[in-house]
């Protein structure tokens, strides 16, 4: 152990003298090591997009899951530790069903996001535990038809966005979203923007490894796009990149 390492650097429940929780900050670093996920809100629905890193041609691409369906009307994108994400995904799924059991109605996206962040927060305040090394984008359409996009971070703080990115290269992707997001995007425009944003990372996009999930306001249901639907968008993007 390094001599300059202090108790507050190791202990999750201990503040540093300047009021920081280092373990939570280290968990944020873990998120940055993950490949990026993007969420975009439009009047017609929400879009989640993520790029999967396929390390070997032998790996089955579908076994890398970055987008997850939570309920009929909500989906989640993750960045960071996949195994940690799976725990939170199952928490969210269970909570969404618990809400249906209790009230016989679908949960709204904000309440679900806050239940997840409350759960994450508990892991920043208890000894012997470590924080979740993952950030989620929770996107869906409320029972009243309102599209919503939320972000959770390892501290357990919920944020609502019109468009956001989590994971590696976040600053670059957020910069791109800030420059190109428009309030009047339709769902197709949202899909295009999400993919364009993902394309700002260093790796080239491949329709086989990109995942896109939408929840449109009209049906209020989660739908994953087929490779055939993603391919034209990606082809167009790669063409633009080649021109440059």
């Amino acid at each position, binding site marked *: 152990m390094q001599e300059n390492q202090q108790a507050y650097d190791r202990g999750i429940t201990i503040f540093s003298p300047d009021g920081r929780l280092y373990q939570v900050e280290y968990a944020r670093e873990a998120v940055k090591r993950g490949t990026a996920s993007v969420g975009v809100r439009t009047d017609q629905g929400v879009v989640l997009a993520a790029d999967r890193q396929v390390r070997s041609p032998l790996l089955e691409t579908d076994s890398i899951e970055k987008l997850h369906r939570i309920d009929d009307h909500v989906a989640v994108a993750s960045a960071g530790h996949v195994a940690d994400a799976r725990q939170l995904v199952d*928490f969210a799924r269970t909570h969404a069903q*618990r809400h249906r059991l*209790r*009230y016989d*109605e679908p949960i709204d996206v*904000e*309440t679900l996001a806050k239940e997840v962040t409350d*759960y994450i927060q*508990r*892991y920043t305040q208890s000894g012997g535990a470590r924080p979740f090394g993952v950030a989620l984008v929770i996107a869906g359409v409320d029972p009243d038809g309102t599209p919503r996009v939320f972000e959770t971070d390892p501290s357990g703080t919920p944020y609502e966005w019109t468009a956001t990115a989590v994971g590696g290269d976040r600053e670059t992707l957020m910069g791109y979203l800030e420059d190109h997001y428009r309030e009047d995007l339709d769902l197709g425009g949202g899909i295009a923007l999400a993919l364009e944003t993902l394309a700002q990372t260093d790796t080239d996009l491949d329709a086989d490894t990109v995942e896109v999930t939408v929840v449109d306001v009209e049906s209020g249901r989660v739908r994953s796009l087929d490779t055939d639907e993603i391919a034209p968008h990606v082809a167009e993007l790669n063409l633009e990149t080649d021109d440059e």
Partner: protein
Amino acid sequence: MSEFVDPVTGADAFGDPTAPELGVPELADEKQHARDESAVNSTGTTTVGIATDHGVVVATDRRASLGGRFVSNKSVQKVEQIHPTAVMTLVGSVGGAQSFTRTLRAESDLYEMRHGEPTSIHALATLAGNFVRGGPWFAINPIVAGVDAEGSHVYSVDPAGGVMADDYTVTGSGMQLAYGTIEGQYDRSMSIDAARDLAIRAVAAASERDTGSGNGVVVATVTDEGVEIEAFDAVDAALAA
């Protein structure tokens, strides 16, 4: 218990979806009291809920009795506001019904704070049914009635947790007399005033012949504006108001 545990308390991170979040009264005590039937204040009761296109009217009698043989109170309020635009009625054991009312009101308030808007009436009735089915309130049969974005709703909640929506519903010992008054007279498009008259007359009919019902009327009117509750010692006064 689920696999999700609060790391600080060690408790289940979800809790029981059918139980009140703020806990329930001890079942053992309640059961013990219930055994001595003659000592339990019961509302006997006639409670009527009518849904119209313009809002909901709920009317109840005002009598509490011991074993149905002695009038133990002549001015009970058996309809309580539990939500910005919903009420419930107290039917069955007074203790059980009062405790249930407090619980449902607290749960409704918690939901409203957390979600930024009140529960739908369907969600409120579902919650009530879950609690009655899973909790210690075994001797109650309330009506949950109110107005939400979808319109006017009246639900009966039976002692086994059955939840049924209807245009109008009656619970309590005088139900057959009250139903007889309402049948054939109800119309979904009737005015609030007409529904109010009908509900009062249904309680009045039951009060005439049912020994568990009587001593005047309490009327609750619920519209999307809110809840108004008025108490009357006599039926005539209620009809005239």
